[in-house]
């Protein structure tokens, strides 16, 4: 059973550039959430995609955008990169349960380490 996969594993960009990160959810999952984790801190929620739509968004600027494809995989795009965007970007997948919110178990991928110079 394949777990959550992310690509690339590492990425180095310069300020002002744009980056696209990719995520394939765990088999059977239909929801993808993206998190940013700065060094020494807990993950911070960026947004969540379900049925190819952004379902909820955290406190991140519009420079952060995403997409979900019909096969449930997802992309995170960041435009006009800043030094402060350097972080580990984590993708988590889950299966939406009809019984209600906050009950889905989220499984994380290995992350993409982004360094902005």
């Amino acid at each position, binding site marked *: 059973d394949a777990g959550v996969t992310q690509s690339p594993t590492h990425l180095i960009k310069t300020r002002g550039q744009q980056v696209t990160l990719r995520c394939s959810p765990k088999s059977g999952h239909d*929801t993808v*959430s993206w*998190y940013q984790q700065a060094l*020494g*801190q*807990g*993950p*911070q*929620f960026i947004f*969540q995609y379900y049925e190819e739509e952004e*379902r*909820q968004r*955290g406190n991140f600027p519009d420079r952060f955008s995403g997409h979900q494809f019909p096969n449930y995989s997802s992309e995170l795009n960041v435009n006009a990169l800043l030094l402060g965007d350097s972080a580990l970007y*984590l993708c988590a997948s*889950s299966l*939406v349960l009809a019984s*209600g*919110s*906050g*009950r*889905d*178990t*989220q*499984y*994380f*991928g*290995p*992350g993409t380490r982004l360094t902005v110079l």
Partner: protein
Amino acid sequence: QQPVQSPQAVILREGEDAVINCSSSKALYSVHWYRQKHGEAPVFLMILLKGGEQKGHEKISASFNEKKQQSSLYLTASQLSYSGTYFCGTATGTASKLTFGTGTRLQVTL
């Protein structure tokens, strides 16, 4: 506002027990516990749901006080493999967005 975890760090000898606490200022639907080793992704340990249901790791237990918006993770007979940073993630709204706590660094030594 992110949940607050305590202690910030703890060092144990193998076989000792530990309790990690997570406290939120908001009403919670669920609490999710993860362990993250350096340079790796967070690994799911336990989910505690409003109403008492919980599911997760066999050797790790947890509690959820819905009235106080607090959760505790109990690590008994710790093993070297328990070392890492523990995060609680809380869900408060109608979607499953998780807000993660400040983290507790646990080190188990021989």
